[in-house]
Structures are given as structure tokens and as C-alpha cells.
């Protein structure tokens, strides 16, 4: 008998199949790891179990009994608790108030609930302070409040979605002890992670997802080695699509990043001394599991995040302290990861979005020459094959592929020397992916240097001239895509140290 049984789960979203017959079986009293790359369908599958999504097909069983969750409250009532990546706590409430929120007694006596929450925390050896307000707590403490919330509703199944992403190493070890004590109490813990060392030290069994399907179910972690897990996560090398022809020789260096350090608002070092260069006509790929510093690196090159130390030059000009518009003038184009939130204005019209880079040039005095902007928009739509209904309708009505063609097209039209493209094909359908990849290849052929940040290894292998791997804010390896295997790169992504072999050089940690 399994505590949790998910069978043949299908979940489709517009343009994306997130789960394609995924399966998961978890024994009671165990800590079970769910592994997979970003986009493998882990979070969707967990949301199906936690009542967030109704699956299109497939069954959910708890202790052998079929369940039909239409909302999270159903799952909570059935004993499933989930700790999301972003905590859902009310900062101005105390720990105890947050724990009992939604399921506490009708009349709250502060001291009574504080005592009860303290007792619950003691039972599972969770260090907490019931009377402190949540905004005062560290990330690790907040996570324990989330876990207490689940225990308060007597969750028999507890899902932790990438729980260690926000924790310091000692906090992560503490979490390992907590999950073990909960498992010893007969509960089962589902532990979503990218980090192999945690899986091997905290978990009993592991299930691996790839492309929405289960590639390995309930493997005992004792039998696993990192190379095997990496292979299961990223797939076989044979999947690599047609490799583009390399441009030889690579031109002058157009982007030079040297010893860049970026510190985030919480004071954590998210980019830790990255150096790289991109030549004219070259595509340099950056691989890495999400959250290992790729996004802050891209934002820092584009000028959206302050560079704590280090230097960024475009075509020999130091742009480290320039504003984003000055960087654009210096020859830098940026396709941000968050297309609608950073690159485009969703409620504005097609023309208003296409003229974002050119309106200063198109202005006569204080006014924008709308007919010139319209003409440029028509040309852009035509050149980059963007399908739009009406130029006057809000851009949010366009499909993901068309939005991205428009965004990439707009950036390329600024005649840049360097294009930084962050996750340019994520979430697009097959034709959209092919069109954007072709666009990037064409631009490289035209002599633009491209820094391609992606989580899609097949894409990186097909397009890159050089492939860098980021892990915990550092570049941990440089690969030649012609010689390296996906397993090598996958292991580097997972933080496994590599001995130098043919085609692989290992730098730093």
C-alpha cells in the first residue's frame, strides 16, 4: 500500500503539455525525492496532488483511496500539505497566528494558540518563536512556519517544493533532520530538488521526471550515483538536434564580463566572480539549473541590477555603471527572461511596444511621429513574421511565439553588437522555438555576438560555439559542445565536480 499514488497524470496548458502520463508512488514513513530539470513538470504534478490543478487525465490515490481535489482546501482536508517555493505568510502576523490561519479556532486566544503551536513545534524539534512576527524571521525560520502550518492541519503528506533554494547550508541540514523526524512519525515527505547531494543525504527514494513523464520511479537513493541521476534528468545525448555550422574564425570580442559579483536585496551573493567573453558572430551558451545566478547575471549585463564589483564592456566600452538606455546605445540588446513583465508592456498596443527602442529617434520635439512608428512596426511585423490581429489591440492578446518574435525583432533592429537572450524559447511551441532559434543563428551569422542563457540543453548543444555551466553563482565548467556529452554538462549543472577529460575544462569550484 502506498501513501500517495499518482497514476498516468496528464495536464495540458495552452501550448504546453506539463504532465504527459506522469506517475509517482510514495511509501508511508519515507522521504521521497522528485527530481527533474526546470520544465520537467514537477511543480505541476505537485499542484495536482495538492489540489491546485485538476488533472486532465489520471488518478490520485491516498492510502489506496481515490481522491478528487477541486481546490487546495480539499487536499488539505485529505491530509496533503504543500510548502511552496514562495512562502505564503502574512508578515505582520505572529508565527502562531500564521500557523492557525484558516484552520484555527473561531475565537483566537493569543496565549492559548502560542502554547499549542509551541507544543507542536517541540514534538518535531522545530525551533521557533510563536510570538514573533513573521517579517522578523530569517528564510529558514519562515519555512519552518510553513511546515508547522501543514503539521497543524495534521498533514500526512507534506510536499516541499525546492525547500533548500532559500536556505543557508546549516539551515538545509536542519531541514534534513526535521523531515526525517516527520517521516519517523509515519508521515511521508515529498522533496522536490535539483541538488543531488541533498537527495542522497536526506531521501529514501527518488522519482525522476523529464518532459512531463516519469523516467525513473521510486529508485532507492542508495543505488544512485550522481552521473546516473544527471542522465535520467537530462536525457540521452542522441536527442541533440541538428548542430549549426560554426562561424570561423570568431571575430573580435564584443562582450567582455570580468570578475562580476552581484549581491541581491537580501545581501546574498548571487553572481560570484563570473568572467566570460563573447566574440562577434559567436554564440556562447550558459547552462544551469534555474536560480544559479543566470538571471541576475543577465540583468546585470543589461543594467537592470547593480553590479557590486567587476566590469562589463561592450565593444571595448566600459558600461558597468551605465543606465540601460546608454547600454542600448553602446550596442547591447537584451531579450529578458520575463518577456511581458520586463521586455514588453502587456496592456499597450503592438505599435507602442515595437517603438520602445526607437521612439526617442522618432520624436519631433516633444511629440512622437506616429506614422513613422506605424511604418516601422509594419516592417518589423513583416520581417520577423509576427502574426498580430490589430496593431491597436493590446499586445497581451498575442501568442507567446509571436510576442517573442516581436521582442527579439525589436532588439535586433537596434543593430546591436551583442545580444543577451535569456530563456528565449521557454514556453514556446515547436514552431516558435524553431523560429527563434533560427533568428539567433541568423544574427550570429550576421556578426552579432550572442550570449544565450537557457535551461534547454538540447538547444544549447545545437546553437552554442562554447558552453559554460553556472552553479551557485559561478561558472564551473566550459565545454565544447562538439565533444562534450549531455551527462557531463548535466553533472556540472548539478554541482558534481568533474575531472578534466577531452573537451572539458573545469574552472573554479
Amino acid at each position, binding site marked *: 500500500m502506498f501513501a500517495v499514488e499518482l497514476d498516468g497524470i496528464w495536464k495540458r*496548458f495552452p501550448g504546453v503539455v506539463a504532465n504527459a502520463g506522469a506517475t509517482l508512488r510514495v511509501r508511508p514513513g519515507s522521504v521521497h525525492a522528485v527530481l527533474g530539470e*526546470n520544465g520537467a513538470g514537477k511543480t*505541476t504534478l505537485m499542484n495536482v496532488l495538492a489540489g*491546485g490543478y*485538476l488533472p486532465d487525465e489520471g488518478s490520485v490515490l491516498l492510502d489506496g483511496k481515490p481522491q478528487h481535489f477541486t481546490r487546495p482546501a480539499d487536499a488539505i482536508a485529505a491530509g496533503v500539505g504543500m510548502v511552496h517555493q514562495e512562502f505564503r505568510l502574512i508578515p505582520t502576523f505572529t508565527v502562531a497566528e500564521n500557523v492557525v490561519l484558516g484552520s484555527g479556532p473561531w475565537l483566537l486566544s493569543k496565549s492559548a494558540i502560542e502554547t499549542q503551536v509551541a507544543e507542536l513545534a517541540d514534538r518535531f524539534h522545530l525551533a521557533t518563536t510563536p510570538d514573533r512576527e513573521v517579517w522578523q524571521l530569517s528564510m529558514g525560520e519562515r519555512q519552518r512556519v510553513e511546515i508547522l502550518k501543514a503539521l497543524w492541519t495534521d498533514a500526512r503528506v507534506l510536499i516541499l517544493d525546492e525547500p533548500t533554494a532559500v536556505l543557508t547550508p546549516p539551515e538545509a541540514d536542519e531541514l534534513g533532520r526535521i523531515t526525517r523526524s516527520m517521516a519517523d512519525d509515519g508521515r511521508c515527505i515529498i522533496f522536490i530538488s535539483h541538488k543531488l547531494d541533498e537527495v542522497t543525504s536526506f531521501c529514501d527514494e527518488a522519482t525522476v521526471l523529464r518532459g512531463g513523464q516519469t523516467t525513473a520511479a521510486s529508485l532507492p537513493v542508495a543505488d544512485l550515483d550522481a552521473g546516473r541521476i544527471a542522465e535520467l534528468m537530462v536525457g540521452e545525448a542522441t536527442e541533440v538536434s541538428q548542430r549549426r555550422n560554426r562561424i570561423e574564425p570568431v571575430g573580435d570580442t564584443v562582450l567582455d564580463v570580468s570578475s562580476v559579483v552581484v549581491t541581491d536585496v537580501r545581501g546574498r551573493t548571487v553572481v560570484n566572480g563570473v568572467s566570460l567573453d563573447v566574440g562577434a558572430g559567436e554564440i556562447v551558451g550558459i547552462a544551469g539549473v534555474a536560480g544559479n545566478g543566470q538571471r541576475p547575471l543577465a540583468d546585470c549585463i543589461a543594467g537592470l541590477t547593480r553590479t557590486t564589483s567587476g566590469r562589463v564592456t561592450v565593444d571595448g566600452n566600459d558600461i558597468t555603471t551605465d543606465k540601460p538606455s546608454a547600454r542600448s546605445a553602446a550596442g547591447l540588446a537584451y531579450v529578458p527572461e520575463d518577456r511581458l513583465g520586463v521586455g514588453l508592456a*502587456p496592456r499597450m498596443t503592438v505599435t507602442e511596444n515595437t517603438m*520602445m527602442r526607437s*521612439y526617442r529617434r522618432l520624436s519631433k520635439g516633444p511629440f512622437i511621429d506616429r506614422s513613422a512608428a506605424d511604418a516601422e512596426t509594419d516592417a518589423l511585423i513583416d520581417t520577423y513574421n509576427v502574426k498580430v490581429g490589430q496593431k491597436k489591440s*493590446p499586445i497581451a492578446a498575442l501568442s507567446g511565439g509571436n510576442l517573442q518574435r516581436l521582442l527579439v525583432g525589436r532588439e535586433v533592429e537596434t543593430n546591436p553588437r551583442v545580444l543577451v537572450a535569456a530563456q528565449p524559447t521557454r514556453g514556446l511551441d515547436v514552431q516558435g522555438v524553431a523560429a527563434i532559434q533560427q533568428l539567433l543563428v541568423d544574427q550570429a551569422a550576421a556578426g552579432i555576438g550572442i550570449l544565450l542563457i537557457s535551461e534547454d540543453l538540447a538547444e544549447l548543444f545545437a546553437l552554442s560555439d562554447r558552453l559554460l555551466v553556472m552553479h551557485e553563482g559561478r561558472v564551473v565548467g566550459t565545454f565544447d559542445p562538439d565533444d562534450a556529452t549531455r551527462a557531463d554538462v548535466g553533472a556540472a549543472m548539478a554541482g558534481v565536480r568533474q575531472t578534466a577529460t577531452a573537451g572539458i575544462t573545469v574552472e573554479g569550484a
Partner: protein
Amino acid sequence: MFGYRFVRRETPLWGGQLRAFLVGLLIALLAGAVLLVLAGHSPIDVYSKMFSSSLGSTRAISSTLGRAVPLGLAGLAVAVAGSMGMWNIGAEGQIIAGAIGGAWVARLFPDLAGPVLIPAMLLGAVAGGALLALGPAIVRSRLGVSEIITTLMLNEVAIRIVRYLVNGPWQDPASNNFPVAPILPEQSQLPTLFERANIGVLIAAVVLLGVGAFTARSRWGYELRIAGSSEQTAEYVGISLKQKVLTVLVLSGAIAGLAGGLELTGSADRLVEGVANGWGFAGIIVAALALLRPSGVAAVAVAFGAIQIGGLAIKTQGVPSSIANILQAMILFGALAAAVFGTHTLVRSTASTSVSSTTAAGADA
């Protein structure tokens, strides 16, 4: 909660603003007719009176336009801030500050000729409104303090200041201790345009249409709308948010201040405590009905003015003022609800949609 929720339409309804307003008006008039019948009045008589007194003659139209001036300027003040995603809830206070500024100029230079005094008073009014908005503008742009709270609280401050002035240093000695300032010099009053409307209607029209066209067509207005759509996108395009926030809120206050100045040089002949008369708050409704587009404010202000004038007129016709007020509120409510339906639609919520709006943004679906 009820199984339904509002979702923004991908494309607004065709002719959204005008059609929404007319549909809302129609529904409200039908519902109001029921109310009037229950209260023992003939809906046809009451509605025809409302129409004839607000739009039925040149005299009626002049009243409506006069009323539309403060409504339109207050609405513009709110809409200009709103097109950048900010809420200036302080137009009421800024109108008062504008009136104080204008009255101060008249006190200092009572002997100036009209063609000099009036523009000077209007400039004083603009400065007064801008000054009251400056504080909120600075703390919002430097520290991120919500302009909603600060502008709202400054309303109270402005009311206390004008109360102090008309009860204290500026009190008219000839007023038998009434809380009013002295009557303004005769040459401070704007010339009549026609019937009851004065030149202020033209001034307001120029400002409304000018600012409306400027925000719609200029680089500045375009940058404003990008900033209102997404702050990160604005940064990415290279727009200075701090500077935009500052200028927009100060401009918003200046426009509201002008409304106070036009009151003083127009229908009011002296500074009184109630100089703003709720127009600053009504301006929020005007701006909302114009969907926060400065270019739409003028038309809404005239329609709103007509409803207010019509509502006043029926009170003199034996309809109790409470019924008249309810009727006005229903019309506004109907129009406002319809305006929401112009850009939003109701959909049934399901488990998957309700989650996708809250969590799936961060999910690796």
C-alpha cells in the same frame, strides 16, 4: 467565492467608453424609474425636468458647463496620475490649496487690473495645488511611500488650514463673525462667456484637451504609460521612474489647484471653507469613468455635470433631495459598473484557473 471572477478582456469592447456609459445610464434610469414610482413621482416628468434643466436650453447648458469645469479639472488631475498607475486621492485638498493660493495673490495685490490680477491668481492657485502635492511626490519617488495615503491625509490638512484662515487672519471683519474671507475685488472675476458660463469654461477646455492630447501623443505621455504598465519595463527602456513620479504628481496637484483658482475667479466671490465642495472626490469618479485616460475626461465631466445640475433641479420640483441623491448615485454607479464591463468580463472560476492566477506564474509548468 461565488464561482465567478473578473478577468481583463484581451481587447476592450468596441467603442468601450461611450457605449459602456450609455448602457449604464439606461440601466440606471430604468432602475431609477422604479424608485420614483415607488416614491409617488412620475418618472417621465422627473427625467424630462432633469434633461431640460441641464441640457434643454442655452441657459441650462451654461450651468452644466460651469459645473463641468471643476469636475473636469479634478478628474484630469486624477487621470494624469492614474495613467502612470498612481492614485491622487488628494484633489479635494489641492483644490482648497489652489483657492488659498489664488486668494492670497488677490489679498497681496488687490489693486491690480483684472487682466493682470486674474492670471496672477490662477498662477497662485496652480502653485498652491502643486505645493500640496509636492510632499507626497517627494516621499513617493524617494522612499516609495504610498501616494494614496499621503494625498488623502493632506486633504484634512488643507481643510484645517482654510478653516483657520477664514476663522482667523483672513476673516472678513464685515461678516459678523461668519467664517468667510472678504469679498474679492470686482476685477478678479472672469468675464461671462454666455448665460451662466464664464471664460473659465474655455480655460478648462484648453487645459483638458491640451493635456489629454499631450499625454496621448507626446514622448512624455508614452513614457508615462510604459511606467504605468510595468515599472521594470520602464527601467529596461531607460525611463527614470523617480523623475516621472515626481513630475506627474506635482502636475496632478497643479491641475487640481487650477480648479480651485477658477472657482475663486468664477462662481465663488470669496474664499470659504467649502470651496472644494466635494469636487476633488467627484474627480476620482470622473477619472474612473474615463478609464483613467486624460483624453476621455472632458466628455465624462460634461455628462457628470449634467447629471449633477439635473439632480439639483428636481430637488426644486418637490422630489425629496434624498431621492434625487439616490438617483444621481444610481446613474453614476450604473455608468461605473458598465465601464468596468467595457474592459473586463466575468468568467466562471475553476480549480485550475484559480490557481493559475495566483501561483502558476512561478510554477515550472
